[in-house]
């Protein structure tokens, strides 16, 4: 079955990059490997004929979230490799415990979910139009909730960023305003 071979190849790709994302030394390498693992997941979706989900995964995770992670690493300067430091952090046991709990919880939710009782539909290709219709009718409330939540997060981020900017600006303006009127200095900006 060529389909099975493709699945195993993609799965091996995804797992390998996920493992690399956890074990590599430099954080930027880890982030890039995580992006590759996201792309592998997208390939698995595509192999399951879920076109929309696959492309959305690529667009959101590889295009946006990986960039976000990379920016966070660069801005916090967490990238420096400290010599003589052990590779794993001392709290790795706690991390493993949390991961195991997460896995158990998700496995239980998936195994107990009613959708496993039905046999898989033979033609699982959901057209984009149908997905859009469902999102706007049956799942409109979760969609709106997610939208409100994200807007709130966005506004919070803007508020935090604006606060910092005004702190930095204050001392910088004094020497600049020597020559010109303060109002004019602002309007030039």
């Amino acid at each position: 079955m060529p389909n099975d071979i493709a699945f195993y190849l993609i799965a091996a790709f995804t797992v390998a990059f996920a493992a690399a994302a956890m074990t590599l030394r430099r954080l930027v390498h880890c982030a890039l490997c995580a992006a590759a693992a996201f792309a592998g997941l997208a390939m698995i979706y595509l192999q399951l004929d879920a076109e929309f989900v696959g492309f959305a995964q690529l667009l959101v995770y590889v295009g946006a979230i990986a960039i976000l992670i990379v920016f966070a690493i660069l801005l916090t300067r967490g990238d420096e490799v400290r010599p003589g430091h052990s590779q794993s952090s001392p709290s790795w046991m706690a991390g493993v415990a949390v991961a195991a709990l997460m896995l158990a919880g998700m496995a239980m939710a998936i195994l107990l979910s009613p959708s496993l009782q039905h046999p898989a539909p033979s033609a699982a290709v959901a057209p984009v139009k149908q997905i859009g219709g469902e999102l706007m009718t049956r799942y409109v409330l979760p969609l709106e909730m997610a939208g409100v939540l994200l807007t709130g997060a966005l506004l919070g981020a803007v508020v935090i960023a604006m606060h910092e900017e005004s702190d930095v600006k204050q001392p910088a303006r004094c020497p600049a305003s020597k020559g010109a009127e303060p109002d004019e200095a602002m309007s030039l900006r």
Partner: protein
Amino acid sequence: MNALDSIFISALHWLAGLAPAPVRPLVSMLLIIAGLMAAFGTCFALATILERKTLGRMQNRFGPNRVGPFGLFQPLADGIKMLIKEDIVPFSADKTLHFLAPLALTAPVWMAFAVLPFGRNMSAIELDAGILFFFAIGSASELAVFMAGWSSQNKYSLVGAMRAIAQMISYEVPLVLAAVPVLMAAGSLSLPDIVQAQSGVALGWVPRWNIFTPWGLAGFALFFIAATAESNRCPFDLPEGESELIAGYLTEYSGFKYALFFLGEYLGLFAVAGLAVTLFLGGWQAPARWLEWFPSWGWFAAKFSALIFLFIWVRATLPRLRLDQLLNFAWKFLVPLALINLFAAAVWWKLPAAMAIRWLLCAGLLAVPYVWLGRHWNGVTPKRRHYGYAQ
């Protein structure tokens, strides 16, 4: 359909027919890929010489004119020069990422050509969500730019990469939002369907291309601006601003890797220009019925070339923006206008068709915010400039 129109499809069928039956799908796929790479590789070479010639003409100089007649063999000379140049990798660079970055930029861009319809029945794969595929593939180039900038271990490279990513993320929002009214009009995410939805004429002579509606015109302008920024071209080319950052994330690249970056940039421009033709300029449709003797791929090529010329013209005309102006322009001007455009398109489809008032109303809905936003988006009310020292 006439033979000239389907000449590429017939050639493909004939060539694939020479192969034994079991491998025929594979062979035809490979032939399509080879054809696309040959066509757009040639386009790349032609675009470089066209760009240098046009820039020269607009700046009142000759441009390249030494190699071959009218300097036409200049791309060949450049290619050979790039191939035999020494490939220098900085000592402290991250070797693997430094090597992978040009590949990671170029490979996805080639994939974007797979969904574009170049003529009647001429798209390599017909996806139900073709335009989504296009944007998803395009978003991979940001990571490649980051890889290039970070792996060089050079401050100029890193700053250039950060600028490029900030710019690409910001302008991706208006780019996608400008395309959404077209999707609403066509009721589909598939690019051949979008071209089909723009067939026919209104009022007896105006082709029903999206650009001839108010929201289409505004959408095209927004899309064009955002596409210029996405492909890092002047006036949005400050990730590579030579006078400030040497060459941005390309600083530590030389030889063929530099050429690959250049190729990736031009191909990205071609892909997004092809998408603009498909979304707003009616794709491969002829502008009038009596012009349909010209093959559909010829119309696509004509519109595509005109658009590429427009990009070059803009580059020759406009000065470079400052970084804060660039980002403010995206978030405070383009994004709100794109959202208003979405609303105007909805109004357009709710009003009865074939009404002059519909055109006027939608144009007004767009023109008023355009003027108001244009005057106030940077928080400064425009007043007469005062040149204190120059007088």
